[in-house]
C-alpha cells in the first residue's frame, strides 16, 4: 500500500517542481526587464513558497493518516467501553441510587479502558508521529513566513533565534564576571 503511494507522490512532486522551476525560469527574463526592485524579489518568493507547499504535501497526507489512526484508537476504545457499560447495566439495581451507580460504572469503565489505551506502545508511537508531523508542517509554515518577512525587510525566525542565542551567552558571561568579581572582593576584604 505504501510503495505505490510513495511513487505517486514522487511523480506528483517531481512534476510540480519541474513546472514550478520552468515557469520561474521562463518568467525570469520578462520579470527582471519589467520589474523594479522588490517586484523581482516577489517572483522569487513565489517560487520558494510554491516549493515549500509542494514539499509539504507528503507531510499533510502523513498527518491525516496519523490523525485518522488517533481518532480511530479513541473511537474504538469508546465503543468498547460503552459495550462493557451496557452489559453491566442490567446488574445495576433499579432504585433511587441507580443514576449514581450507572455514572460510577460508566466512569470506572471508561477510565480504565482509556488509561489502558494511553499505556500502549501503538498509541504512544502514533501520537508522537502525529505531533512530529504537525511540527514539520509548522516548520514549513515558519519557512514561508520567513520568506515573506525577509521580503518585508523584517527579521526572520532564524535571525531572531541568533539574537536570543547571543543574548543568552552574553548574560551567562556577565553572570560569570559578576561572580568572579564578588569572589575577588571577598578575598580582598579578608
Amino acid at each position, binding site marked *: 500500500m505504501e510503495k505505490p503511494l510513495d511513487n505517486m507522490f514522487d511523480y506528483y512532486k517531481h512534476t510540480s517542481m519541474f513546472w514550478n522551476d520552468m515557469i520561474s525560469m521562463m518568467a525570469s527574463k520578462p520579470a527582471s526587464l519589467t520589474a523594479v526592485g522588490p517586484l523581482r524579489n516577489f517572483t522569487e518568493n513565489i517560487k520558494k513558497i510554491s516549493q515549500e507547499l509542494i514539499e509539504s504535501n507528503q507531510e499533510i497526507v502523513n498527518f491525516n493518516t496519523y490523525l485518522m489512526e488517533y481518532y480511530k484508537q479513541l473511537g474504538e476504545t469508546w465503543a468498547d467501553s460503552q459495550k462493557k457499560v451496557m452489559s453491566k447495566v442490567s446488574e445495576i439495581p433499579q432504585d433511587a441510587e441507580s*443514576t449514581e451507580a450507572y455514572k460510577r460504572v460508566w*466512569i470506572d469503565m471508561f477510565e480504565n479502558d482509556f488509561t489502558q489505551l494511553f499505556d500502549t506502545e501503538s498509541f504512544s508511537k502514533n501520537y508522537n508521529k502525529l505531533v*512530529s508531523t504537525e511540527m514539520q508542517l509548522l516548520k514549513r509554515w515558519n519557512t514561508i513566513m520567513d520568506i515573506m518577512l525577509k521580503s518585508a525587510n523584517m527579521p526572520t525566525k532564524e535571525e531572531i533565534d541568533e539574537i536570543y542565542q547571543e543574548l543568552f551567552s552574553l548574560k551567562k558571561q556577565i553572570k560569570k564576571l559578576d561572580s568572579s568579581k564578588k569572589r575577588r572582593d571577598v578575598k580582598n576584604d579578608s
Partner: protein
Amino acid sequence: MTLETSVNESIIGDFLNFNRNIAEIPSRISVPHEVKMDTCEYDVVYEEDRIRMLHYKPLTSKQIKTPLVISYAIVNRYHIFDIDPKKSWIRNLLESGIDVYMIDWGTPTKLDKFLGFDEYVNDYLDNCIEDVCDRSSVDKVSLQGYCTGGTLATVYSALHPEKVKNLVATAPVIDGWKDTTVISNIAKNFDVDTMVDVVGNMPPEFIYYCFSILKPFEQGIEKYLKFFQNLDNEKYVNSFLKIEKWLAETPPIPGELFKQWIKGIYQENLLARDKMFVGNQHVSLKNITMPVFTQVAVGDHLVSPECSMPLHYAVGSDDKNLEIYPTGHVGMIASSYSQKNVLPTLTKWIKTRSD
C-alpha cells in the same frame, strides 16, 4: 392503550437542583481568576531573571537554625504547597518551627529557551542556596524537591553536597525506564528535538494535553459534575476554584531543559544509569552522602513509585529513609492525609537532623 413511565422522584429533584445551580452560579461564587491561592505570608528575598525565592514569615517564636529550601517542580506553580490553610504543607512546616524558603521558577519567555539543567542547578538553585546561607549564617541548608523539582534537588545534592545538610525528595523523577505512567509512555517516543526546534519552549497547551490523558473521565467530567452538585458547600467550592486556577496556570518549560529532561531522564535514563553530565560535571548519586528522605505515593499517576524509589537505593548515604504512602501525587503534599501522616514524620526527621 395507555403508556406508563415511572421516573424516580430523586432523579427529577437532582436534575432540577443541577439546573438551579447552573443558573445561580455566577452570582454565588468568585470569578476563578480572582481567587487568591496563597494562605501564608512571605517576602520575595531573591530574584534572578524570571525566578524568585520566597521566604515565609515565621509562625513560631523559635525556629531551628537550618533553613529548608523547597525546589518546586517545573510544571505548574508552587501555590499547591499552600493552597488551603488546613492542608497547607508550608503552614505545617512553619508551625513546626522550620524556616521555609520556596523557589518559584517563574514563567520563561522565548529568550529562556536555551536554559538547561546546568543553569537551573548550577546557577539558579546554587545562587538561591548561597543567598539563604548568607541570610541565615549557615553553611548548609535542608533541601526539599517535589516532582521534577525533586530531580533538580537530587542533581544539585550530587554536585554540591557540601551545601546540603539534608535532602528530602518528594516524588522525584529518577528512573525514567521504570516509570509506568502514561506520561512516560508518551515521553519514550517523543520527538523532542523537532518540537523544541519549532516551538522553542514547551508550550503549556502540550502540558495540558498530558494532564488530559491522566484520568480523563474522573478529572474531565466527574470533577465538574461534582462541582455543580456542591455549589452550596462553600468550603468545597473555594477549594475547587483554587485547585482549578492552580492547574490552569502552568508556565512553559524552557526548550533546552525540556529536551534534556525527555532525552536524559525518560529516553536514555542517564541519571539512574550514572551517565548524566550537567555543566561538564558527572552527576553521581553516590556523591549524595547527606541524610536522605525519599517520599513516594502508591497512587501517583504522574511519577510512579518505581520511578522515584531507585533514589533511595542509589545514594551513598548511610542515613536514609524511604516512606511509601497510600495516596496520590498531589495528595502526598496537599491533603488532610498528608497533614496527618506525611508531615509529622517529615518535620520530626528534619528537626532531628538540623542545628
